[in-house]
């Protein structure tokens, strides 16, 4: 008992000296206090495990021969989520579809973060005509309604008879390319403010190059914003991909994606009689997007010093 008291005292005194409290570590600590955000984070990890590890545990494989006689079976002990009309296991397909959808979301996010933060930082740092050009470009992209553009692009791609396997990558880049302006604006605003700070004057008198000033001194200060926007844009990417695939313009079968699986609900008979075909991918999209958004909000609260209560 007394030993336990002593130990807990020791622990109370020690922690701050363990490692230097970097801003990131402080934010992480803040994040841990937010139960909802942590729940979102855990759900997201489970979803990743489900999609990337799950298929390895399944008795079925994507290479299994189609068997129409075994098609359209409702959930059973062999097929937990039933089978589709050519007899493929729906559970396996949901998991594989998740790989595609998550990958599209993440790669689209990376493309948009890379373009958005770089251009935003350059615009904010140089101002003047560089800023005007970049921001007007952003305005143009933002003012194009994205759905029509995506539909037109999708139709054009279908015309070009592109290999479905490569088509995913194109979808990723297009989604990423259309979503950078929002981030670029936020980063630019931050950089405009940061470049007037005294520490930037101090960096200037050290004789640093512009590149170093922008990418080493300014951008790291905007990372909180970038992280939050990036997280939320993963959810956005997944949704956009689903919409496109649902419309038959994004990822096309046989590659499964949550979006093109839901398109099963297109036909009346499957919508009414075979809900196991479209409910599972729908639920997956819903859970993933909600989890990411909840986590993104938590991250924003943890990283923004002004929102601390």
């Amino acid at each position, binding site marked *: 008992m007394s030993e336990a008291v002593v130990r807990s005292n020791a622990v109370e005194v020690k922690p701050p000296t363990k490692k*230097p409290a970097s801003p990131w570590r402080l934010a992480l600590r803040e994040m841990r206090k937010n139960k909802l955000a942590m729940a979102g984070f855990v759900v997201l990890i489970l979803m990743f495990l489900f999609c990337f590890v799950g298929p390895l545990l399944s008795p079925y494989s994507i290479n299994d021969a189609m068997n129409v006689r075994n098609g359209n079976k409702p959930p059973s002990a062999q097929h937990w989520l039933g089978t589709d009309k050519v007899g493929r296991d729906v559970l396996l397909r949901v998991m594989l579809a998740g790989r595609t959808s998550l990958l599209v979301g993440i790669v689209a996010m990376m493309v948009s973060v890379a373009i958005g933060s770089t251009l935003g930082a350059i615009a904010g740092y140089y101002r003047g005509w560089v800023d005007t050009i970049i921001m007007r470009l952003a305005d143009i992209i933002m003012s194009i309604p994205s759905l029509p553009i995506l539909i037109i692009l999708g139709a054009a791609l279908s015309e070009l008879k592109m290999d479905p396997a490569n088509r995913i990558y194109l979808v990723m880049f297009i989604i990423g390319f259309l979503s950078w302006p929002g981030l670029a604006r936020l980063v630019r605003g931050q950089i405009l403010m940061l470049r007037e700070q005294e520490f930037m004057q*101090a960096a*200037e*008198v*050290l004789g640093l190059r512009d590149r170093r000033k922008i990418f080493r001194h300014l951008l790291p200060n905007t990372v909180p914003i970038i992280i939050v926007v990036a997280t939320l844009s993963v959810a956005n990417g997944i949704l956009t991909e689903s919409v496109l695939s649902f419309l038959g313009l994004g990822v096309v079968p046989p590659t499964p994606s949550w979006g093109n699986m839901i398109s099963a609900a297109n036909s009346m008979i499957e919508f009414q009689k075979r809900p196991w075909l479209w409910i599972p991918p729908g639920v997956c999209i819903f859970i993933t997007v909600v989890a990411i958004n909840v986590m993104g909000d938590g991250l924003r609260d943890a990283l923004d010093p002004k929102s601390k209560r």
Partner: protein
Amino acid sequence: MANNLIEFRNLRTNFYTSSGVVKAVNDVSFSIREGETLCVVGESGCGKSVTAMSLMRLVSPPGKTEGGQILYKGQDLLTLKERDMRHIRGNEIAMIFQEPMTSLNPVLTIGDQITEPLLIHKGMTRKDAKKRAIELIELVGIPRAAKIFDSYPHELSGGMRQRIMIAIALSCDPKLLIADEPTTALDVTIQAQILDLMRNIKSEFNTAIMMITHDLGVVAEMADHVVVMYAGKVIEEAPVHELFANPKHPYTQGLMRAKPIINQRQDRLYTIPGQVPNPVELGNNCYFNERCEHCMSLCVEKPPILTTYENKHKAACWLYEKGGEVS
């Protein structure tokens, strides 16, 4: 004494504002010798900081350095290529600022920030730079240097951050250290420590210091030579003892009288009447004429010229041109 390290010749820096042209630095000439501490004194807005920023060539629009020369080791900094200028900043001429709390980048560790100039200007390896950085942290009087190396700015106090700023400034053994009100934001005890530190550095490395301040106490303690500025012009320049013993310009005399004296009861300190003239509407006269007790008709007609008198004492005032003395 030693040679001139920096020589300002008729420097002019103007700011183009919507209400007119502000001559922030108006025909300023003075020089800093090797290993000397030169203090630039004057009230807010008189052009002290702009002079320093002109030297660094970091006056940002709407400001523009439009005339004169700044000679460093015989070459004119104002005509240097940007790339060569970058090599001088931080390497040969370093600068520290008034606000230690905001002068360090909050997301980089102290170590990152001290090693940066070493990696860039001296081309050191990361390992050597780290060793040197830890030496520097010890040099500026911070214990546990190895731990501070990995800390972030928010973990340090204001005095420690100013020491770190000095360490960064010293990292490349600069010939000149510009200190723009380095102690204004610190409390008095820390102020004394920082001034001590700077004095030690000066004697140890023979670094010239250009110290910008409005605190005559700091001037008395640190300076070898003093330049007094008013409304963008140098109005008086003298070795420190000469200036304190025998201030010539009525403005400098006013400043000296406005200083509290320890162990002497005073109900109210002296104040110089009037206000600093609006920098946009300066006429062709002595800018101090409206506030001056000794204003003569000549003072309103044309500006006085900085003239050298005995004991290396320079002043710009008509009172002395006629051989008259202030009573």
